[in-house]
Structures are given as C-alpha cells and as structure tokens.
C-alpha cells in the first residue's frame, strides 16, 4: 500500500521523535491548520453534513472523557482510561465501520464505542466496578473491552475466520458488501506474542481483519521506541501483508484509510495493519502521573495538532458550518455531560449474590452450594445484630474507592 510523503506531515512538522528511522510516510487529509489535502490512494468526498457529524462525534466523545475523569476524581469511578488526543483515530476508524462489521476494542476505545452506539453508561459501569463490561457484543457489533494486552487481536482474527466460513466475504457479485473485523490495540501491545500470532493467523487465512494500532507514543511510561526500532506500520512486512501509517489526529485520514482497509478485507484481500500516529494527551489512566517520565514540551508540541481544532477550523473557514453550529454542539456536549454525571451517581451497586451469576451456562453444584451458604450467611446478619458486611448505600462511593484514590496518589496504576 504505497502512501506518498506529505511535506506537512505533523510528525515531521514539529520535528517530534518518531520511532527511530521512521520515514515520514504519513497519510494526512487535513493539516493541523485545517487545510484539506488530497491523496490519490485515499480519495474522500464528504458532504458538509458528514463532516459536521464527525465534528460532533469528536466533541461529544471528548466530553464523555472529560466527564468520566471528573467522576473518577469525585470517587464515583474507581478508574478511567482517557482517550484525550485520540478522538480522531477512534471516530475516524469507528465511522469507517459498516453496521455488519465487528469491532474488538482494547480498554480505551470509548470513541469507537460511541460510534457503534454503545451506551456510554456501560463504560462507566466497568470503570465504576459495577461490572466487567456486561454488554452484549452482538447488540452493536462491539465486543467487550479486553484488558489483557493483545488477547483480543486473536479473538478478532478467529471471528474473521468465522466470517470466511459463513461465506460472508464479498465474492464481487453485484450488491454484495461483505463483512470485516477491526481489532484495536496500542503501540505497547505490538510486543505481545499474541498480537504477532494474530498477524500470522490472519495472513495464513487471508482473513478479513484490519489491525488498528493507535500509536499514542506511550505504553504507560515506555516510549514506542521500547517496542520497536522501526515504525510500527512496517511490522506487517515481516508477515506478508500491507501496513500504513496515518495521521491519527486527522479524522478524515483515519476515516479514509480505515475505509479502504475494511473494503479490501470485505472483498477478500485479507488483513491490513494501520498505525494511527497519535498522542496520549492525558495520563495513562487516572492513577498515572506522566510528569515522572515525559516532557511538558512534548505535550505542547502535540497540542498544536489537536484533532478537534483542525476540523473546527476547516468547517468554519470552508463555510461547511457556522459559529451557531459549533455553539449548538457545545450545548449538546454540556447536556450529555450533565446526563452522564447523573446517570453515574444513580447507578445501583450490584447485589451481593450477583457475584455468583453467569459463571457457567449449566449448573455447578459446588458453586450453587457456595452461593446458598453465603446467602444464608448474609441473612444471619439481618436478624442478628452485628456488622452487616459492606453496607454500601446505592450509588455512593465505597470507602474502598477513597482508599484506592489515596493509594494511587502514592502510585498504584491499573490496566
């Protein structure tokens, strides 16, 4: 997949450290300044409404993120993994998906979740400790978050092998669209054996899967250089399928490049690796302290290529939208935030006995006995005086959350 070098490629522009020896091959369709570029390999023709839609997505997912961080600070969430800075990579790729496509996220894909139509509350449930996810992947063709780094790339590949067996890869017959899978993972994940095995399986099966790597420059405190001495998009060369690096802060480029990779997959051309070159503007999670390992200057340089500002600039300058539109989206964001806050606080704690549910489809007498014994044990507190274990008022932050918050102030990151 040839991509022509862009003089205005931001990584070059700000002279940031790329992975050692990185060429400046970076697909970009919208510069940080909001100037529209064109790339013969990735033609993209969007209506004003469509670009407005992307802008709305970007603003709203950022708002969800901001709100969640605040809720964590207030002890309403145990943790949050912020997508700040990665909105374009997630919205661009997320909007490239067709309804029939299946997405396998990592744990930071809140923007993709939004594009797939998952209720943001589901994400808060997970980070609040109410569930481990608990949504039905089939409902929005959006799989559960996977926390163990890299594991989901093999699930995505296997799912794609299922698509092949279902004859759901387009054979070119008129009107046939085909189905594809997209697997999300980070720069750090590329070092896991599982991710490399997923590359092997997908190449071996020519499976309809797109590997979407968000290179946000950091794996917690480790720079991408720790994982590879060549640009990550070149990893696929060792496995015999194409790789492409796209400006991950350019929602148009992410949309176009992901669309073309998905189309190729749906039409039986097999896997593609996309490296979305972006930046984790925030902490790794709410428990992380990036000042320990990275320079403020780096952050400043990346601020200049904010994924939202460039779209706003383009919309206004090109007249595709006016100030009123921008304002209207901001208001919508405010409403969304308020609703999220409320819904989060109102979220009931799971019942104690829910911990015993959904371990097996069939029955397990040993587990059932444990549940019954524990239920009886809990009842024994009802009549007898004495400490009812863990009497957490619904929706109130548990003491443990406080303990953790404090603990994390001293270090103790998760994910």
């Amino acid at each position, binding site marked *: 997949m040839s991509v022509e070098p862009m003089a205005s490629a931001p990584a070059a522009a700000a002279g940031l450290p790329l992975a050692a020896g990185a060429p400046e091959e970076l697909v970009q369709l919208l510069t940080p300044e909001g100037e529209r570029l064109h790339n013969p390999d990735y033609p993209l023709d969007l209506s004003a409404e469509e670009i407005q839609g992307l802008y709305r997505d970007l603003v709203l997912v950022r708002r969800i993120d901001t709100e969640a961080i605040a809720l964590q600070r207030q002890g309403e969430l145990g943790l949050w993994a912020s997508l700040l800075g990665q909105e374009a990579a997630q919205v661009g790729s997320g909007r490239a998906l067709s309804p029939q496509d299946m997405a396998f996220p990592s744990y930071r894909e809140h923007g993709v979740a939004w594009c797939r139509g998952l209720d943001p509350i589901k994400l808060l449930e997970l980070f609040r400790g109410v569930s481990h996810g608990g949504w039905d992947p089939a409902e929005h063709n959006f799989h559960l978050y996977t926390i*163990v780094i890299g*594991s989901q790339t*093999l699930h995505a*590949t*296997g799912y794609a092998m299922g698509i092949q067996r279902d004859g759901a890869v387009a054979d070119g017959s008129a009107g046939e669209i085909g189905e594809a899978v997209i697997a999300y993972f980070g720069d750090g994940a590329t070092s896991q054996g*599982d991710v490399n095995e*997923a590359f092997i*399986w997908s190449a071996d099966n020519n499976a309809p899967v797109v590997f979407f790597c968000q290179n946000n420059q950091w794996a917690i405190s480790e720079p991408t250089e720790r994982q590879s001495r060549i640009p990550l998009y070149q990893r696929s060369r060792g496995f015999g399928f194409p790789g492409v690096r796209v400006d991950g802060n350019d929602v148009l480029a992410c949309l176009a490049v992901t669309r073309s990779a998905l189309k190729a997959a749906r039409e039986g051309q097999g896997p593609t690796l996309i490296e979305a070159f972006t930046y984790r503007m925030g902490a790794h999670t709410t428990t992380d302290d990036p000042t320990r390992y990275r320079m403020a200057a780096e952050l400043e340089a990346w601020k200049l290529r904010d994924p939202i500002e460039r779209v706003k600039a383009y919309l206004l300058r090109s007249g595709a939208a006016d100030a009123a539109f921008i304002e209207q989206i901001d208001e919508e964001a405010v409403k969304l935030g308020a609703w999220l806050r409320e819904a989060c606080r109102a979220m009931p704690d799971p019942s104690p006995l829910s911990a015993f549910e959904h*371990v097996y489809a069939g029955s397990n007498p040993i587990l059932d006995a444990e549940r019954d014994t524990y239920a009886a044990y809990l009842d024994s507190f009802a009549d007898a005086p004495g400490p009812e274990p863990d009497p957490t008022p619904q929706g109130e932050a548990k003491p443990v959350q406080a303990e953790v918050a404090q603990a994390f102030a001293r270090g103790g990151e998760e994910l």
Partner: protein
Amino acid sequence: MSTLTMARSLNEGLRKALEDDPKVMIMGEDVGKLGGVFRITDGLQKDFGESRVVDTPLAESGIVGTAIGLALRGYRPVCEIQFDGFVFPAFNQIVGQLAKMRYRSRGAVGLPVVIRIPFGGGIGAVEHHSESPEALFAHTAGLRVVACSNGPDAYTMIQQAVRSDDPVIFLEPKRRYWEKAEVDTAASLDQALPLDVARTVAAGTDVTVLAYGPMVKVALDAATAAGQDGRSVEVIDLRSLSPVDMAAIAASVRRTGRCVIVHEAPVYSGLGAEIAARITEECFYSLEAPVLRVGGFSTPYPPSRVEDHYLPDLDRVLDAVDRVFGY
C-alpha cells in the same frame, strides 16, 4: 456394538459431533492429513473439509485465541493440544479469556470451546509429554474439566463436551488410547450419564478408591487384588474434575469410612487435596482414617526410565489401602 480402541472411540465421537452440527470445527497442529499425532482426528479432514478440520500454525495461544473468536461468531471449535506439556503457551487465553468471557459479559456470550489434551505418562516419552495439569484448570472458575478413562465414556463424553455451552478442558489418558472396548455408537446421548456425574465402577464396602483417567484401571486392578485379601474396595471413576461429583463421593465414603485418592499429578496442591479436604469437611464423623493420597512426587515428571517409580501403580495403591486400614 463394536470393539474399538479409545483412540478410535474419540475419533467416532468427533465424527458424530461434526455430523450433528455444522458449526462444530476441529483445529490444531497436524489434525488434518496426519489425523493428529495420536490419529484421533484420522480421516476427519478428508470427510469434512479443510475449513472444518483445520491445520493451524504452530502456536497454542493462537489456536485457543482464534477458537474464542470463532465461538463468538457462533462456531463450536474443538482444539487439540498435541501433548499436555504444550498447553501452557495457551494458558493465558484459557484462564484469562476463555474461562471469563461469560462472566465478563454477564451471560451475554458463552464460549462453547473444547480443549482436548492427551495427558499423563507411562508411554516412555521425553520431557513435557507426560504431564497432568488438571489441578491448574480445576482451580480456574468458568472452566469445566473432565477426564475419560475408557472407550465408551470417551465416545459419549467428547460429544457431551462439544454440546456443552461452557468451555471444557477434555483430558484424554494417552496411555489408554490403544485399549479396546465394546462401544455402542448407536446409543443416543440422551440416555448417557451426564458429563458431571461420577461412575461407580466397582462396588465395595470397606474402602473407597477415587480415580480418573489413566488411574481408573490401576484402581480397578487394586480392587481385584485387595478382594483376594478379603477387602471389599469401591472404585469411583470421577470423570468430572471440576466440578467433582461430591454427592457420589460423600455417599460412598460415608458407607466405607475410608478413602484413597489416586492421580498421576504431583500430590502437592493437586486435585486430590481438594477432594480430601471436602470429604473431611462433609464426612468428618464417618471417617475411620484420614483420606490418603497416592500420586506423583514433588518433582518435574522424571525421565521415562524411572517413570514407573513416579507413577502410582498397583502396589502403591495397595500400600495406601493397607495404610488407610492402619488407623
């Protein structure tokens, strides 16, 4: 009724499963043309095609990880792990993903994946080819762990495992693969003993011997030998290791008052420990003696020229039976 080896019984069971449900798949290393190193999948690729009987790249994590993805798409993969010692590259996918997906999704998705593992020693093999990792899986909630000990069970249990909506670790006693038995391939599964129920294979009154997989035969031989010394030994084939059929076990031990557990895996933190602890909790007043365990030593599996010392045999089981009467 036909006389089949256990290997062939498994092969027939898998064939039946492939016939009964078009979503059933077999995947693993060398399961295609070769039919697996033990020939358990012999002829299946020829008859069901390369997309249902799949030779995979050489990586166990990839095998189980992609099987999970296929299950999410509605397939029912049966993965073959070539030997017990090679399941560990897949351990992360098994305990971190396969076992947890239903819980993670609050029941929205189940993963009907079977992991077949030829396990145990006694075949004079090199390192990593004779291990018994059942306790590691039994300690992992979300998995069902079963072991067959004979051909007829192998034939039905593998079909039941494939039909199970829970992931099943299916342990096959490789040293028994070539033992023959009468198998009724016509019998319907509905009449079969449920997958999680133990079977009493020898009735007795003086002592209960619990075994599974390759050790059932050893336990039965011990029962016969002990019988000649006038001791009536009850032998129970556990079949299901997670969960274990405590109802059957406790009922027997309450009658006999004595119990010996036999497995090849190291005794230390092995499955026998769980069963012994449970029996003691549930049958405390019935026990004439502590539950005794006969198993492997706290060493890696030794070179095959000394494996007969490591593996519980007739004499060691009889020795334990004697000791359990010494209290």
